[in-house]
């Protein structure tokens, strides 16, 4: 397929393809970080993760409408406000859900699966009733659209750069929070030994609530960012959920580093294969490879050694 192209053209195509892979990597990390925190630190499989993302997307939509109506002059920066709003809304709903539902189910992991799946259905129908069954169009400030021409043939998508920057920031923030803050210390203590953590005076219920809220809040930010590249509709969350679980399970459920490594592996594999074959075939092959590796290593790429 490379016949008849000059070396320069091929070079720029490969450069753009590498960039496409990096964008996909950022997208995967962003969408799976929230799930990985909840799944890894609390053992709860949050089937409503996609819906928390879409809540963030709808918050972005509402914020953009509000800026349109009340502060059109500041429209260029509305997206940053929208992400904060999305984080707060999804995080607050997450904490509410944890308080009203999840905390009664910690000893029954399969029931959390069912309960959060039910929650996802409720949220979908709520979106449909509130915002309508049709997708809403989230308008972006002009500076976020289009691409930067690096050379004549290489162009870099601005929204891709934005997602990459955002992902890096959030990953660093999560790292600092988990491994460099007192609160992170408490979370890790609870994960390692809940009764002991409680015995030394850590309020484990509060830690659980904030962890769940943090995971959902990051999902909200992800949803907000994805209004740049995807659709915002009641069931759009379902589009991301499979890839999200794939990344988290493949990476080893309890490890954040594993999630990032797995996102990198899957995104590069998928993006490269998509270039050489049809999108459907690339997906099939990616899934096949992941299944094979999981057969050999059921725990995923990275394993956190925990004495239970």
């Amino acid at each position, binding site marked *: 397929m490379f016949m008849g192209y000059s070396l320069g053209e091929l070079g720029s195509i490969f450069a753009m393809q590498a960039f*496409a892979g990096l964008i996909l990597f950022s997208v995967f990390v962003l969408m799976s970080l929230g799930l990985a925190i909840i799944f890894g630190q609390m053992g709860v499989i949050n089937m409503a993760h996609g819906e928390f993302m879409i809540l963030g997307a709808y918050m972005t939509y509402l914020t953009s409408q509000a800026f349109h109506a009340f502060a059109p002059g500041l429209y260029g920066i509305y997206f940053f406000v929208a992400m904060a709003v999305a984080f707060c809304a999804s995080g607050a709903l997450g904490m509410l859900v944890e308080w009203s539902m999840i905390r009664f189910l910690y000893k029954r992991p399969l029931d959390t699966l069912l309960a959060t799946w039910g929650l996802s259905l409720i949220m979908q129908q709520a979106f449909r009733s509130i915002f309508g*069954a049709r997708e809403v169009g989230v308008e972006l400030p002009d500076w976020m659209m289009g691409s930067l021409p690096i050379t004549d043939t290489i162009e870099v998508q601005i929204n*891709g750069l934005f997602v990459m920057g955002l992902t890096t920031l959030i990953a660093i923030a999560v790292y600092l929070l988990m491994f460099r803050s007192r609160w992170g210390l408490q979370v890790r203590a609870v994960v390692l030994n809940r009764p002991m953590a409680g015995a030394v005076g850590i309020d484990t219920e509060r830690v659980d609530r904030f962890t769940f809220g943090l995971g959902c809040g990051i999902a909200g930010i992800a949803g907000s960012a994805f209004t740049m590249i995807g659709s915002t509709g009641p069931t759009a969350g379902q589009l991301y959920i499979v890839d999200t679980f794939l990344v988290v399970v493949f990476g080893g459920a309890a490890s954040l580093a594993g999630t990032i490594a797995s996102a990198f592996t899957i995104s590069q594999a998928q993006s490269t294969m998509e270039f050489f074959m049809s999108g459907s075939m690339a997906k099939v092959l990616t899934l096949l490879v992941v299944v094979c590796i999981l057969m050999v290593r059921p725990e995923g790429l990275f394993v956190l050694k925990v004495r239970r």
Partner: protein
Amino acid sequence: MSSDDKRLGQGLSQMNLGRRQILKGLAAMPVASAFGASAFFPSSAFAQAPATSAINTTGLSVTDTEVTVGILHSVTGTMAISETGSVQAEKLAIDQINAAGGVLGRKIKYVQEDGASDWPTFAEKAKKLLVQDKCASVFGCWTSASRKAVLPVFEQYNGMLYYPTFYEGLEQSKNVIYTGQEATQQIIAGLNWVVQNRGAQSFYLLGSDYIWPRTSNKIARKHIENFLKLQVVGEEYFPLGHTQFNSAINKIKLKKPDVIYAIIVGGSNVAFYKQLKAAGIDLSKQTLLTISVTEDEILGIGGENIAGALACMKYFQSLDNPNNKAFVEAFKTAYGPNMVIGDVTQAAYLGPWLWKLTVEKAGSFDIDKVAAASPGVAFDKAPEGYVRIHENHHLWSKTRVGKARPDGQFDVLYETAELVEPDPFPKGYQ
């Protein structure tokens, strides 16, 4: 074209009167318009109605004053986004028919069932509408999968289905009237147009991975390679719900096709056009032809992301004819000023009207007589212009090419001079 225009012109004066009355009626009773107008019209209008025993010999739900029909669409689940418009259009048509005196002196009463975006549910509900409610006809289904699921039910219990969506063809049934276009009607005119007007030489075919895009692209490829003698430089499919198109877009940049031919559906559509724009592909310079984006889809995609793309279908909301103006106005009066009307919504609107005209031509509600009377039934008040039912139960209709505007509407660039013949089993395209 001219003969059609004349026919339109003749129908026009009577029609305007009728529409104005309907509008007044709708404005006066918003509740009735939402729940199906009934009981608001003096019974004298139904005075000359023929006896029920004469026009209903097979036990359908027809009384001296009422006839029951079914509406079967998804109003919950994934497909609700698409099917909502169809439901609204069908109800609007039923209300207008009732306001104009009903069918054979009977007011139409409808029973609505929810297919819930689940194909077995569609089959179950279809059976309920035919067996329990004894509907004289059913307006419904959207996806090909749901139609395939209900088809055996309609054939077994001898019902009548009016199906609104443009689809892949390769089907024909005594029990179905296809009010949308089949694939060759929609595809060939558009391809010919871009070749003649944009000098297109090479095509890149894209699609979501299921029966409609694959069959349509097969027809497109055959037409491009065998009839136009031009080149297809790539053909590619993505799983439903795919959201990452950067690799595909890089491939397109490498191949530099004259035309991107895209049949991507659902949420993927939004991702595809947003990423295309972000990647710096300017649709005012790069020709992109789609058959899967109507005004409905643009709501989600955002007009600014798809402006300049060409769509090929039979109806656009911006069509400039008196039928369509009245239709758009009635639709907005009934459902709100921000509503948009896509190709399928208009095709759904045709269903109840075609059924009414067919019943009146047959002089009976009996399914067999309606099916037999269908070929040749013409509807000259259709918003898309003039349509006629073909012997194969599809519609003769014009095909149009529209160019997307940033406000989410289309500028119509071209329409076929004549009605295009439906050909669900095209020779040379299999």
